């Protein structure tokens, strides 16, 4: 991870999706471990082949080797999602789980 925004697959092309065929997913649980104390700025975008239609931004804070969890609940189903991160260089180990039903 570095200062230039890139997605979780290390793609810097802003139109490239991180994952597709996600229309059935109602919520994403993004969990992982930070590599340093520096905060991580993230943006999650939802859309389709015609472009991005929704986005949510935030910051992941915490100590080095600290666990984090980000819950993303898009307002509508989207086929494509792009998860972008930026910040001081650090290794980020994380996973994203999608679920088809949400409680709240």
């Amino acid at each position, binding site marked *: 991870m570095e200062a230039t925004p890139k997605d979780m697959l290390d793609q810097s092309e802003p139109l490239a999706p991180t994952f597709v065929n996600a229309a059935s997913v109602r919520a994403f649980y993004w969990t992982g*471990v930070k590599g340093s104390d520096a905060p991580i700025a993230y943006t999650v975008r939802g859309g389709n082949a015609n472009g991005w239609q929704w986005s949510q931004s935030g910051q992941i804070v915490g100590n080095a*080797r600290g666990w984090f969890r980000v819950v993303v609940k898009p307002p509508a189903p989207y086929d494509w999602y792009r998860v972008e991160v930026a910040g001081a260089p650090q290794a980020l180990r994380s996973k994203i789980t999608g679920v088809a039903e949400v409680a709240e």
Partner: protein
Amino acid sequence: MSAERITRREMLKRLVVAPVGAAALATLPVHEGSAAALQPYYEPYFVAVLWEGRTRCDSLWRSLKGDVVAILPTVQGTTPYDRLYWTGYALGRAPVNVNMRVLARAVDLSGAPLGSGWRPIGQATIQTPPMRWFRVEIPEGHWDEYRIEVRSATPRLVYSRVIASQGYWKE
């Protein structure tokens, strides 16, 4: 064509087994992240018993399984579950005063934790009269593994189970 009388269970087994050929399965790229991915999904919700047994509580933080090895999970393969519940009761005539805490972590496709340590989810003190049931709802679902620890200043035997549910009750 002949008819035969079978049970509903037998019919379900045949429905599940019959259409799946070994050749077709062999050509599919299958990546199982955890054992839970193999569990069937029933509408509108699915409940699983993840653990059930007896825990000898003492002054050390112990997993419900009895160990004090902090790297070991109490339950695994919990990725699909929205909620976990811990229910049980403690033997003995004295009032129950047991501390509990819940830790969680995520693992990669091979089952190795993404990082060291755990994320603390919450802690509580179970205080009930003797031989009374308790129930704790674990707030954060969808972690891959949980470690549920208990301790008690007075040694107690706790009988309990951990259940998990996915999908939501239609009310």
